[in-house]
């Protein structure tokens, strides 16, 4: 165990530095570079996310899990996932909101203290995605609760999620 | 190294021996048991050496080296081989649950302290206070042999008892004559080998080392 720890401490897996290693457009690059600064200014350098699975296929959840791993390591920005909407600043909703989850989603939004952000993560959450038009879904989060930002992609890559958070924070800043 | 410091060290080692004895009683995993046993032997060896230094009894150095060789290196190695060969990793269940065993152990320690009180009054050695610990170690080894079902843990308990006896000898009377100790050491080795074969036979006969199985040996009437 000690050997493991020492290995971890001294030859550390390098977390990805934005924007290197990503083929993303320059203006996004700009956003990413000062992403840290934005998190700092607007949320006192601390953003707590509550992830809500509104009938998703769990692909998006896997990507959100990837956010926590040593490669993307979103915690270093002061962003973290929490266990209760009461503790959260942002709801990250995945999945086309199925009828069963509609009320639950509303109540979750109600339970989140102001100021709060609501992000629809993934194509399903955007407009129902491949489930669009099904009688069992409400075709996207926006039809249930007001949405501050949408992250396209099926599923969106962790990078895309971080980029979108950057955009969103821009919007809040304005 | 002045006498004061040495006796302090000795009492510290005594308490460590007591701790390892308790650890042997409550530990479930076999490898950890072996490690604990080796540590106990190590503490015993060091304390023997210190007692030898304190009492100026230089044959104790030899017996400490013996202890180091046999109890820290040889016996654990043999037992380890045994465990690997018999594929034993942990004791599934003990006869009495662990917290209860701890309480019994505490009571035993108090009892042995009470027993050795008169000897403490008589003896004049610097190390007399560790006698209670030695007795307690013996009793804890016994407790271990009682509360465990597994044959290997029982032999470890037996060896721990022997540690206690040796410690008692060194702390009460600055060690037994060297011949005796040599004899004891030899016996231990032989005992270990015999136990080893014995286990093989048990495990081949009952394909288990749970000594409760031996109840099957008695006549069914």
């Amino acid at each position, binding site marked *: 165990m000690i050997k493991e720890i020492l290995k971890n401490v001294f030859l550390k897996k390098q977390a990805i530095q934005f924007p290197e290693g990503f083929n993303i457009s320059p203006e996004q690059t700009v956003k990413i570079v000062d992403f840290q600064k934005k998190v700092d200014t607007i949320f006192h*350098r*601390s953003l707590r996310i509550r992830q809500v699975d509104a009938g998703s296929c769990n692909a998006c959840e896997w990507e959100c899990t990837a956010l926590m791993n040593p490669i993307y390591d979103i915690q*270093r920005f002061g962003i973290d996932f929490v266990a209760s909407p009461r503790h959260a600043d942002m709801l990250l909703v995945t999945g086309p909101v199925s009828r069963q989850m509609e009320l639950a989603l509303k109540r979750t939004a109600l339970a989140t*203290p102001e100021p709060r952000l609501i992000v629809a993560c993934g194509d399903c959450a955007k407009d129902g995605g491949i489930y669009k038009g099904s009688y069992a879904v409400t075709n996207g989060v926006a039809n249930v609760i007001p949405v501050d930002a949408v992250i396209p992609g099926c599923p969106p890559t962790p990078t895309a999620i971080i980029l979108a958070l950057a955009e969103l924070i821009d919007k809040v800043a304005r | 190294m002045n006498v004061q410091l040495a006796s302090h060290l000795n009492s510290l080692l005594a308490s460590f021996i*007591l701790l390892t004895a308790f650890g042997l009683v*409550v530990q479930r995993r076999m490898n950890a048991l072996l490690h604990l046993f080796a540590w106990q032997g190590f503490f015993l060896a060091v304390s023997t050496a210190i007692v030898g230094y304190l009492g100026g009894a230089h044959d104790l150095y030899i017996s400490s080296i013996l202890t180091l060789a046999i109890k820290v290196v040889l016996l654990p190695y043999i037992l380890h081989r045994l465990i690997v060969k018999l594929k034993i990793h942990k004791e599934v269940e003990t006869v009495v649950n662990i917290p209860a065993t*701890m309480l019994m152990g505490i009571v035993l*320690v108090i009892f042995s*302290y009470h027993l050795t009180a008169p000897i403490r009054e008589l003896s004049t050695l610097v190390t007399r206070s560790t006698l209670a*610990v030695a007795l307690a170690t013996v009793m804890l080894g016994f407790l271990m042999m009682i509360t465990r079902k597994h044959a290997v843990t029982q032999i470890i308990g037996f060896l721990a008892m022997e540690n206690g006896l040796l410690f008692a000898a060194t702390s009460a009377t600055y060690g037994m004559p060297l011949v005796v100790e040599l004899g004891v050491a030899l016996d231990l080795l032989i005992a270990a080998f015999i136990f080893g074969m014995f286990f093989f036979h048990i495990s081949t006969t009952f394909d288990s080392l749970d000594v409760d199985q031996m109840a099957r040996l008695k006549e069914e009437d």
Partner: protein
Amino acid sequence: MNIDPFIVEVFQVAVLLIVAPLFTGWIKMLKCWFQGRTSPSLFQPWRDILKLFTKDVTLAENASWIFRFTPYLVFGVSVIAGGIIPVLSMDLPLSATADVIALVALFSIARFFTALAGMDIGTAFGGMGASREMTIASLAEPAMLMAVFAVSLVGKSTSLSQMAIVISQGHSLLRPSLAFALLAFILITLAETGRIPVDNPATHLELTMIHEAMILEYSGRHLALIEWASMMKLFLFAVLGIASFFPWGIPRNGELFAVAVALPVLLFKLAGIGVVLVLIETGLAKMRIFRITEFLGSAFLFATIGMLSYFMLE
């Protein structure tokens, strides 16, 4: 020149309030490093607290006054406890307010109200957290008292500053009773402050929660107070350990230079404690709740051996 004890007292409480979140942040950093990750900044806990203070409070409809009163009480208890333990000086105006036993009782009144607040809302998680917390606390209590007993045998007292004075004299490193009491105290600290292997402060799964489950309903400034108080509790157990086992470097009285030296010494010791804590937390996995009996049982065993070895060997 000597500083007035009251000033030292105020300074010490200020240090408690400021340093406690940094201590938690330091532990988080070490953890990230040990897991080979880029760590958040040392000030992350402070940022969380400040952010929470600016947020609104969302209160359950059926929350009674107990639920709203608890955060303030818990916070107040931690602050007062911080004034009692000798951290920067041994003569403090508040140090006679409580000895170790009364100090433990102060913590347990905070726990009592937290548990009530958990049951106040009437959710299953709150009740579950309260039940488990009280169970573990009642198992930790005998071990704690036994450890106190062992230390007070050496220190000839249960008042903290007195124990610190007596232990800081003499070569007490070689005392087996203190060694075992320290061992027991570490296990108890893990249980009382809800660290791995007893409880996982970073868990997201309600069913594995103990302390978190009781505060799931809190938000905004209430949550900020409770989180700050729990950081302070961790800090306070650390300085309690320092005061009763490694009191070297705590000045006997409020002499200016000594106090000035005491602060870096304290930070150094805390850094060391952080390393030990993180080694334990990285090395061990969280236990099943019914294994905690054996965990705290062994804590009791260590403390008792400490007590016995005082009588038998010293």
